[in-house]
């Protein structure tokens, strides 16, 4: 309750929350606002943004409505961002929890694996995965989740390592509770706050990865995507730079809102750091 109040009192966190609500709203109501296919021909190509005209944010080189692509792209970005973050956090928690709680050989093996994953540049690994599983939205979402878990695993492991030697966990062991009970009902709830906060970092990275992939034309070509629109705009950058500029601002605002909310949560959940 105190944490919630602290969160609501922070102007930065509130700004982030409002921004995020607007973006989520845009994603939810994209079909209502722009019922037509955002990738279909809408009018004369390369019309500059005009708040009074038919196309609020103009049209791209193929004559598609940029505003419609932004609205539908919000859906793509949020959906892929959230799902891949959930995948990354799930994998990371399981691996980190097992490594941190059991230690010894389990820890050795799992941490070697994590280190190996971190040795590979995540974007290059993502490229390899996309070559294998293809470019449709589901495959790309899973691939982003699969390359993003190592940092979560490290964080979870560190939390578990300190918690497992806490006396209350040892007390649970002397009481004869099962390991599963101790991991999920005693340790994990105490480790969750920093992991949730870190989720905002994972999500920001996931959104960047997705948009970079789309920018390179390696993501699903059949859905509206901000990154893809930036890539399209590159061909007309010299004169019609707005085509690339607008979706970029959308990505920037989305990541900004996610980070602000994440930071707000962090300050609210870590009372020790509050006055910083």
């Amino acid at each position, binding site marked *: 309750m105190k944490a919630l109040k602290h969160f609501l009192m922070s102007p930065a966190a509130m700004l982030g929350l409002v921004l995020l609500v607007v973006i989520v709203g845009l994603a939810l109501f994209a079909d209502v606002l722009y019922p037509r296919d955002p990738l279909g021909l809408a009018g004369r190509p390369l019309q500059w943004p005009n708040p009074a005209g038919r196309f609020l944010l103009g049209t791209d080189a193929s004559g598609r409505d940029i505003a419609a692509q932004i609205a539908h792209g919000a859906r793509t970005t949020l959906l892929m961002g959230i799902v891949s973050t959930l995948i990354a956090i799930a994998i990371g928690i399981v691996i980190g929890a097992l490594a941190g709680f059991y230690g010894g050989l389990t820890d050795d093996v799992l941490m070697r694996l994590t*280190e*190996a994953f*971190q040795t*590979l*540049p995540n974007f*290059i690994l993502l490229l*390899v995965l996309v070559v294998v599983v*293809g470019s449709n939205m589901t495959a790309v979402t899973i691939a982003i989740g699969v390359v993003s878990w190592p940092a979560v695993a490290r964080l979870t492991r560190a939390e578990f390592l300190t918690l497992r030697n806490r006396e209350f966990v040892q007390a649970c062991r002397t009481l004869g509770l099962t390991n599963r009970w101790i991991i999920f009902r005693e340790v994990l709830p105490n480790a969750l706050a920093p992991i949730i906060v870190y989720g905002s970092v994972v999500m920001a990275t996931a959104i960047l990865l997705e948009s970079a992939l789309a920018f390179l034309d390696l993501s699903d070509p059949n859905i509206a995507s901000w990154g893809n629109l930036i890539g399209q705009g590159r061909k007309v950058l010299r004169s019609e730079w707005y085509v690339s500029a607008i979706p970029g601002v959308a990505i920037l605002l989305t990541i900004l809102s996610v980070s602000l909310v994440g930071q707000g949560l962090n300050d609210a959940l870590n009372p020790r750091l509050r006055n910083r």
Partner: protein
Amino acid sequence: MHILKLAGRRLLSSIPTLLILLAGLFILLQFAPGDTVDALMAQMGGGDPAQAAELRRFYGLEGSTAVRLLDYLWRLVRLDLGFSAIYNKPVATVILERLPATLMLMLSALSFAFFAGMLLGIVSAQRVNGWADTLISLLGLLFYATPSFWLGLMSIVVFSIWLAWLPPGGLYEIGSGATGIWLVLDIARHLIQPTITLALIFLAIYLRIMRASMLEVSTLDFVRTARAKGLTRGEIVRRHVLRNALLPMMTLIGLQAGTMLGGSVVIESVFSLPGIGRLAYESVVQRDLNTLLGIVFVSAVMVICVNFVVDLIYARLDPRMSAGA
């Protein structure tokens, strides 16, 4: 000497994991739809199956997965990365030609992000909650949220198209025939935009960590001791806070070397730099799997090397490390 041995041991211990990982990726890539020969045939405008089989034999693409994997690993040990059908050269040669551009980009971006991030972090922590701190934190937040490839494009619009101050791409002016110092200056001029756009997000991360780490260290007991000794604020920061605060920064650099290398893929594409990042992209598009796997190998080796250096610096900074504690 002891430090070197310690870091060397870590270097050595990363080799088996690297091999296992590469083996895993090799097997994974066997499931990829379409191989180099398919891409090559498409490039040639189609051909008959006999010709395809011939080509497969030539590029070592036949036989069971296990046989090819063993063959691949055996070649890796001899640092033979295979043959690129697309470039019609050994993969190692292709990558070596592209390596200098990436190395220069990485080195300049890493140093810029590190030193600027460190400086801003220190200033921020010194004036915590003041206007300078707020301004720096705000900038950090913006840098963090900006997609690098988009920033690159916008920077091209402003600095290359509107102002015409900086070249929009490439590593040097083709056909200028510049040599020696002039070539160096030309390359430096070409690298300004890519370096800054690649570095900004890392600068934001480093600055945030440096600030937090400085503030964290400032609360520790030995800083109170330093105050009780009657040291000035500046002396306390210089002699006691700074070095301790740098430790988490070093760890972070090691962890993020890979991410930065990944970021160079898009940046090299945006600025048409002939580096291995762009090569990775091209080999994905052209299904040049040999080259792609070679790039994975080389980039992993680069990350391991960065971590080796980071280990050395860390051990220099922290005497507890070399004690093996």
